[in-house]
């Protein structure tokens, strides 16, 4: 019996009097693609921050592969195999695309804080970087400064950095926000390709993406998960319809 | 006069000027010209310039023009060495400095090193006011001459005064926290224990050099210690502010100082300090002296109306250097140094000798008191420094034992 990739147990988070997360329980199996949806202000970003170690829970626990990570700092969580992206593009704008991805690769390749090696001479690191760039289709733009990339490419780069360290659990925070239709389609394809064999947790507003991508969906409303299930179960759940999903949304993907 | 003639004359004059210029004796003056001790350094510079002008008017130093090159060292030893290097680079072979034994110590070191490393290009350090006794004892150097009486010699005079005044039973020592301040405190402790074992030292305070802006808390301590007299080696702003705080807090015991004559102190002291502030020095302007000396003082104070004739030793230094140049017929630092050793001069206030064994000057000292009954006042206050014959210490009597083992090149 293997432990679930991620297990949230009775998770609470308050900021002063404001209770943002109120008792979330969730288990995500290895290899699962899980989407978290909910109206604005439901606490989705806070939940991501709790999982990834940016905030520490007021009570309750977060377990990654059976190990409690609820009191770890983000970099410690990351080293244990969880990586995340951000809602707004969060890349190293002063570096080239290649250097961005290389930053994501370095630690996992055992080059941590070393100051006795020239990065240019680390053969495996260069190869891995190139492989990832090729995988996500950014190799042609490898030597452009990240700041000069078009928006959709920056989002792609964000995903590339997120997967670069080889984490088994990937958290993506609205990866397709602000993209056009065709860009979204390409992004979904990329996410599927890039997270193959990994556990994916995604927060997304675009229901097309959610229902196309997710194995299971959780609905977060006012800091509580009101429903978890397969896409068709969620679509049929009256509570979900009432709380969150407009009919037309569901028609759209049907 | 026709054109050709006058042109030839002009050319001749400029040629002469050019030659004179090439034979300038450059003296590097390294002292504070800004900051808390700026006024003190500035007063010294004015006196040096005045003395140099005098020598130049009388035909120069062995026929050469004397020029003072000022360098601001902010009383920082390291900065002083940077400035020393600059002075040497600009052709100064004589260095004068006075403010701060910490600086003098660094300069002695650096000059010694320079002279070993650059034979034939020696530099001579003439110290006019840095009075840490070590410079003419353990750390004496052939390349250093001191034209001021050292801290021990002055302390002998002050402790004698304390011993003579039988009402003084408790003494408070306050000084600046560096080598000179410590030397003063140590000398006071040692000499009082020797001469007047019944006098108790009720306080021994060292404060940061040049950083205290309000001495009231220190004065408060002095008052509450019931001291009958205060001994201080403070100079510059530290002297002025100490006295300012003492006056405003009504501390009226005698203040026995090394540098009560510091520029600005008289204004801060005012009427209230009359009869209670003393200083030990080689001069006060109300001493009986020659007409020539009086004329010199008049000329100086006419030129710098906001300054007083204070650094008599600067004139002694320049005169003795001039005589040494005359005597040796050279302005080479080594020749001047040789000629200075053992030189005896008949000064306006008595005979002055430069000891050959440790390069320490012997000059008469005077303990003067701040008074409202004086001929020459200071800082245009109608107050000044006065002394009686009983306050005079003969040059010979200031002589102390030395541990110096002079190494001559």
């Amino acid at each position, binding site marked *: 019996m293997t432990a679930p990739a991620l297990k949230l147990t009775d998770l609470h988070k308050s900021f002063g009097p404001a209770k943002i997360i109120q008792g979330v329980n969730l288990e995500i199996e290895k290899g699962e693609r899980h989407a978290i949806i909910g109206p604005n202000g439901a606490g989705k970003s806070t939940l991501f921050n709790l999982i990834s170690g940016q905030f520490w829970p007021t009570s309750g626990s977060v377990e990654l592969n059976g190990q409690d990570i609820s009191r770890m700092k983000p970099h410690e969580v*990351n080293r244990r195999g969880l*990586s995340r992206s951000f809602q707004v593009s969060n890349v190293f704008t002063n570096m080239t695309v290649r250097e961005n991805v290389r930053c994501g690769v370095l630690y996992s390749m055992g080059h941590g804080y070393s100051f006795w090696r020239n990065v240019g001479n680390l053969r495996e690191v260069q190869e891995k970087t190139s492989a990832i760039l090729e995988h996500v289709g950014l190799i042609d733009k490898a030597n452009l400064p990240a700041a000069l990339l078009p928006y959709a490419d920056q989002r792609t780069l964000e995903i590339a950095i997120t997967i670069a360290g080889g984490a088994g659990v990937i958290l993506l925070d609205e990866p397709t926000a602000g993209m056009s239709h065709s860009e979204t389609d390409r992004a979904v394809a990329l996410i599927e390709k890039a997270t193959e064999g990994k556990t994916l947790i995604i927060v997304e507003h675009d229901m097309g993406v959610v229902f196309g991508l997710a194995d299971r969906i959780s609905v977060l409303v006012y800091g509580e998960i009101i429903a978890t299930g397969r896409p068709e179960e969620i679509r049929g759940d009256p509570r979900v319809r009432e709380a969150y999903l407009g009919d037309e949304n569901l028609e759209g993907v049907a | 006069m026709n054109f050709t003639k006058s042109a030839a004359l002009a050319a001749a004059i400029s040629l002469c000027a050019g030659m004179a210029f090439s034979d300038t004796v450059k003296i590097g003056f390294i002292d504070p010209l800004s900051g808390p001790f700026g006024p003190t350094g500035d007063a010294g510079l004015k006196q040096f310039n005045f003395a140099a002008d005098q020598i130049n008017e009388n035909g120069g130093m062995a026929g050469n023009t004397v020029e003072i090159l000022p360098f601001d060292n902010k009383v920082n030893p390291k900065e002083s060495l940077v400035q020393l290097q600059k002075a040497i680079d600009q052709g100064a072979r004589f260095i004068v400095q006075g403010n701060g034994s910490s600086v003098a110590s660094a300069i002695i070191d650096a000059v010694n090193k320079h002279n070993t490393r650059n034979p034939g290009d020696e530099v001579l350090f003439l110290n006019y006011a840095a009075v840490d006794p070590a410079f003419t004892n353990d750390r004496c150097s052939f390349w250093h001459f001191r034209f001021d009486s050292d801290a021990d010699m002055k302390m002998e005079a002050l402790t004698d005064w304390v011993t003579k005044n039988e009402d003084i039973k408790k003494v408070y020592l306050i000084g600046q926290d560096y080598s000179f301040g410590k030397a003063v405190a140590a000398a006071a402790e040692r000499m009082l224990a020797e001469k007047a074992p019944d006098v108790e030292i009720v306080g021994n305070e060292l404060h940061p050099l040049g950083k205290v802006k309000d001495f009231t808390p220190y004065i408060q301590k002095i008052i509450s210690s019931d001291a009958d007299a205060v001994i201080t080696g403070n100079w510059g702003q530290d002297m002025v502010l100490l006295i300012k705080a003492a006056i405003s807090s009504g501390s009226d015991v005698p203040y026995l100082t090394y540098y009560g004559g510091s520029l600005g102190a008289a204004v801060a002291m005012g009427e209230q300090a009359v009869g209670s502030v003393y200083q030990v020095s080689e001069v006060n302007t109300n001493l009986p002296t020659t007409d020539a000396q009086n004329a010199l003082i008049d000329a100086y104070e006419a030129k710098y109306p906001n300054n007083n004739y204070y650094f008599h030793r600067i004139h002694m230094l320049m005169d003795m250097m001039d005589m040494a140049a005359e005597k040796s017929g050279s302005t080479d630092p080594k020749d001047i140094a040789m000629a200075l050793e053992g030189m005896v001069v008949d000064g306006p206030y008595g005979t002055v000798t430069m000891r050959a064994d440790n390069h320490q000057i012997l000059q008469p000292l005077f303990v003067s008191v701040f008074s409202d009954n004086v001929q020459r006042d200071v800082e245009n206050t109608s107050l000044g420094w006065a002394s009686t014959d009983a306050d005079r210490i003969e040059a010979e009597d200031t002589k102390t034992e030395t541990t110096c083992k002079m190494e001559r090149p």
Partner: protein
Amino acid sequence: MSDMATENFANLAPSNAQKFRMRVLPFVLFAAVAVLIPLFGPSRSAYSLLNAIGINIVFALSYNMLLGRAGLLSFGHAVYFGLGGYAALHAMGMIENADGGFWGSVPVFAMPLVGFAGGALAGAVIGWPSCRRAGTAFAMISLGVAELIAAMGFMFGSIFGGEEGISGDRMNGPEVFGLSLGPIGEVYWFIAFWTVLAALLIFAFTRTPLGRMSEATRDNPQRVEFVGYDPTRVRYLVFIAAGGFAGLAGGMSAVNYEIFTPEALSLLPSGFVLIMTYVGGARYFAGPVLGAIVLTYMQSNLSDFTEAWLLYLGLLFITIVMYAPNGLAGIVAGLWNGTRATGMAYLKTWAARVVAIAIAMVGVIVLVEVAVRKSNGYGEVFEPFGLHLTPGSPLTWALVIVPLIVGLGLLRHLARDEQEAGA
């Protein structure tokens, strides 16, 4: 060979020739200049200046590891310079007093290494509490620590020597490369050696994983956490390295000046290295080098021409902060790139701007110089080019006001032109 993939797919990748031109050639030139200088037979004052420049280059480069590379604004970098210098001086004292034994075999030439150790150790101790924060908090802590250490300097006489400081003698111990280190010309070789070596090492540091991550942390500490790095740890390690190189510069200074006083730890030298680095250009590796050369020159030579040199320095610094945040190096790079991109037109507007600034400067200089002489009270008069400018004369005021109006007007006009061209 490792860059094969790059070469196959992207033409923008730096070729080996480019790499050589960007990374190796500048250092070869730098070293060549350092070696060639003595051939011109510099005077003693030139040597003093060059030695000071070398020390300041290393000091400023080490400071830029923090400011430019890691984005940490420190007001206390002189602490590491000073502690390194003190360590070196104490070591020199041991060499002087050594009777054989370990210290008897240590050459004074190696003192910068002792300085490095001292600076790095101090960085490791002080950096621990300081590096938990970045930005303004880091700046404040560095200020507090600097003042604290400087105040302590006056207290522990056996370590810092009180007001007198600690002195040493460099002419002891075994000689390296046949240098006795006595005459200043020999000290030059010592300084040149360590300057080039330190610059090389600091550059190499920027190419290491830690060096790259320090820049990543500067730009985006949050992202850095999610690639497995602890930003605090990155800052801390960079801080130690920067402290080490500052200490190395301190060790060079200890040998050159043979004295250190507690003032060397204080806010003033810390402020000076900040100004050097920023004026030179913190975004460029060569910026601090440029800044160190220009400012050290100003410090030692401009101060002979004018007493108001610090005023000019302040004006220069503020102008750079307001109009050229990338410093002198940024201006040079801008000129180079602009000329290459748009050709002579760019050069022309640039030259026009320089002329305008120069005209305005005439007014500023006349004003400042006349004022300085008046405030000194020695009765000196500012006499440039045989003019006799007294504070009262109308000529003086004309020379202040007219250039200022003309210069600033011209600058404004140029700025407007540029705006229209851009629109």
